[in-house]
Each structure stands twice: as C-alpha cells, then as structure tokens.
C-alpha cells in the first residue's frame, strides 16, 4: 500500500547520528544531513512500504516508526528477516541488492523521506562527502552482518538466547539513535512479531519473556523494555551459545 505524501518537517538527524558514531563528520557533511526535508510519506501499521519512484523516494530513510523486511510464505507465515528502526535506510530495489528487493512492512506507523537527491549529492562529490560515503557503506555492511547473525540465531540458538541476543541488539541500535533512556528503550513489537522474527511460536515467546522477567533480567511496561541486569542478560546470551 502506497503511503500518503505529506508536507511535514523532517530531517536526517538520526542517520547523521548513526554516521557520526562511526566517523567524525565535517561541518559541511553535518549541514547536508541536517538540511530540512519537506516531503515525507506516512504508512500505517501493517502496510507495505514500497515507494513508487518517480518522486525521488525509491530510496528512502525511515525517520519515525519501526518496520521489517519480511518473507511471507504461501501458507501465510511471516518470517521477519530484519527489523528497521528510525535512521535506517531503504535502498532502491532496482539497484540489485537482495536486501532491497525484500518486502518491507510497517510494524508501527512509519514515516519516510526520500534520499535519492541526497545520495546523488554525496556520490557526486566524493571528496567533500567522503565520511558520509564511507559511513553509508559501513551501514550496508552492518545490515548484512546483522542478517548473518540472525541466520545463526535462527539456526542454532535456543529460544532464551535468541530473545536475549535480540533484545541486546535492539538496545545497542536504539542507543546509537538516542532512543535509550537509562536502561530502557521503546520496543513496539508484539509477541507475535517477536515470534515471527525469531522463528518461535507466540506461546514460546511468552514463556521465555515470562522467565526473563521472573529472573529480573528485563521488565516490560508501556511498550518499553528495561534491561534490569545487562550482565545477566549478556551472560544468558553467551552461555547458551555453546
């Protein structure tokens, strides 16, 4: 379902934070990234994010909301391949990268802005925007690395470790974009979505989360996860990997 194009002030601030966490950006690069963008597209939860192109939005950036790359089987079962957060880029399927050809679905209300013009500027002046360019390349590598980690998670890890490592991954990603307060971060994922992402039945997710809460490793309230015992959670993830 195509989103609604709206005029609303948006910026690439979260992407800028992600890039700056890897390389110190120059003043010119900050200026480009923080330039106000006035055209954005809004998607409701459950709708497919598939920008039609022609308006510079085939490549886009999520500025708010969560989405997922998904595979839907003939039987209707959804396998979430990766979670996309604010500050994550959606590439142009026409460029041939497998990750960009996968269906992307909004898990919550999502707003995107087009990045084709931005990419064109960066690619057109490699010297001036060298740190942005290298950062974008690193972000793509990060996407692929996370996908490989996810394959390992699905293929060889028991449920408690899958959930523990997934929570820690989301925590780390939210911290980079400034979404962590204390030791808590927003997680607008239902247990069904977690099950879809982690290859577990909903009741299995429910049971493991129940145990993690009982063991005082995490707590959940109002769509936020609080990591109450980071060392314990990390130990659980690592101890069970053998």
């Amino acid at each position, binding site marked *: 379902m195509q989103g609604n194009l709206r005029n609303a002030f948006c910026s690439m601030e979260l992407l800028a934070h992600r890039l700056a966490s890897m390389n110190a950006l120059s003043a010119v690069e900050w200026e480009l990234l923080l330039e106000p963008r006035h055209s954005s597209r809004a998607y409701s939860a459950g709708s497919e994010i598939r920008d039609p192109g022609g308006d510079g939005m085939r490549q886009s950036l999520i500025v708010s909301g969560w989405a997922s790359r998904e595979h839907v089987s003939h039987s209707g079962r959804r396998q979430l391949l990766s979670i996309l957060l604010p500050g994550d880029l959606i590439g142009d399927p026409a460029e041939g990268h497998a990750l960009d050809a996968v269906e992307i679905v909004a898990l919550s209300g999502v707003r995107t802005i087009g990045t084709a013009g931005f990419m064109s500027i960066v690619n057109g002046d490699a010297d001036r925007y060298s740190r942005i360019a290298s950062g974008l390349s690193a972000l793509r590598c990060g996407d692929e690395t996370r996908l490989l980690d996810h394959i390992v998670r699905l293929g060889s890890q028991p*449920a408690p470790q899958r959930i523990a490592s997934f929570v820690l991954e989301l925590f780390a990603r939210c911290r980079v974009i400034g979404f962590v307060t204390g030791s808590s971060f927003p997680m607008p994922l239902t247990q069904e979505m977690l099950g879809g992402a982690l290859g577990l039945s909903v009741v*299995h997710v429910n049971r493991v989360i*129940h145990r993690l809460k009982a063991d005082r490793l995490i707590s959940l309230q109002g769509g936020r996860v609080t990591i109450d015992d980071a060392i314990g959670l990390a130990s659980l993830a690592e101890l069970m990997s053998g």
Partner: protein
Amino acid sequence: MPRYYFHVSDGQRFDDLQGTELPDLAGARKEALRFASGLLTDTKPDLWTGEEWTMRVTDDTDLTLFTLMFVATNAAATNGK
C-alpha cells in the same frame, strides 16, 4: 478469534495466563506442536531421567481440549547412561 492456553509441565510448571488467539482448534494443534518442538529442543535433559513432559491446551473456560505428553524411556542396553 478464540483464545487458547498452553500450560506446560516440564520439571517446572508454566501456567499460560495470557493465552494466544488462534483461528480454530486446528490452528491450536499446529501451534502446540510448534511450541512443543521449540521447548523440547531447548529443554534440559530432564526428559532422559524419566521426567514427564506435558502440555495441556485449554480454552478460556479452562476446559482441556487436548494434551501432548512426551516420555523418554531408556532401554536396558544403555545401562542407565
């Protein structure tokens, strides 16, 4: 959609207080097998020491709809190893 509850006893008791909405009984059976498969994969080897593994699936009136039970029995040839 009806809500089904998956109560598990596998050395520790897990009462499913939340339940899961599923289209019908066939969906509940399918979910039960998927859940059981995941749990049995994760579980400590209590099953091999004679611990009975049970999943009781109920509706929202606590009426038992079906039960899955797994018991591992070692043959004498293993000499209790």
